[in-house]
């Protein structure tokens, strides 16, 4: 029924994953990873796992986002590959 949405979200996730791995700027990579995590939360919702989706959202946007940015500020913003 709503498998089109799921497929779209999966494709966005894969794209986000590839971008996050390929982009030079780590800050951008981390933001892309946030998109990835948000999409995976959406996918979880669409598959009915609301608890997990909620956790993923809270963790992905909140804790991991903050940690990621903190780590980048503590180290370096750009990557060689």
């Amino acid at each position, binding site marked *: 029924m709503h*498998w089109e949405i*799921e*497929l779209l979200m*999966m*494709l966005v*996730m*894969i794209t986000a*994953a*590839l971008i*996050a*791995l390929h982009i030079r700027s*780590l800050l951008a*990579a*981390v933001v892309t*990873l946030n998109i*990835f*995590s948000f999409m*995976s939360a959406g*996918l*979880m919702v669409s*598959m*009915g*796992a*609301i*608890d*997990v989706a909620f*956790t*993923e959202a809270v*963790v992905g946007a909140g*804790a*991991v986002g903050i*940690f*990621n940015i*903190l*780590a*980048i500020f*503590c*180290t*370096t913003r750009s*990557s*060689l*590959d």
Partner: protein
Amino acid sequence: MMELIRGHYVYLLLVVLFLIGLYGMMVKRNLMKKIIGMSILQSSVILLYIASGFKDGATVPVLDPALGPDYPNAYLNPLPHCLMLTAIVVAVVTLGVSFALIIDIYRNYGTIEEPLLLERMKDEE
């Protein structure tokens, strides 16, 4: 064939995601990138479990007073959800520890690029 794809396309795409994550960990030389690959890897496994808990035409695993508990096929399988909550927590904490390690590495060597790191380690000897 179409049947197989409709039933399994999520699994197949998750396998692709798993491989992307593994690729990031193996090929990328920046430590942060490796960590990003690691998150992707873990996410794909988590989603695989979630997908396995799905049932056609079922609702979320919160008891619906109108439905009652006697029709198991009316609710999604809650077990994988519960398991994946744990897995997500584990993934987050692993991430936190790896950040601590990256920061420590940066403090010692001033870089988080693997080739440069190895070079500087060699210089040290």
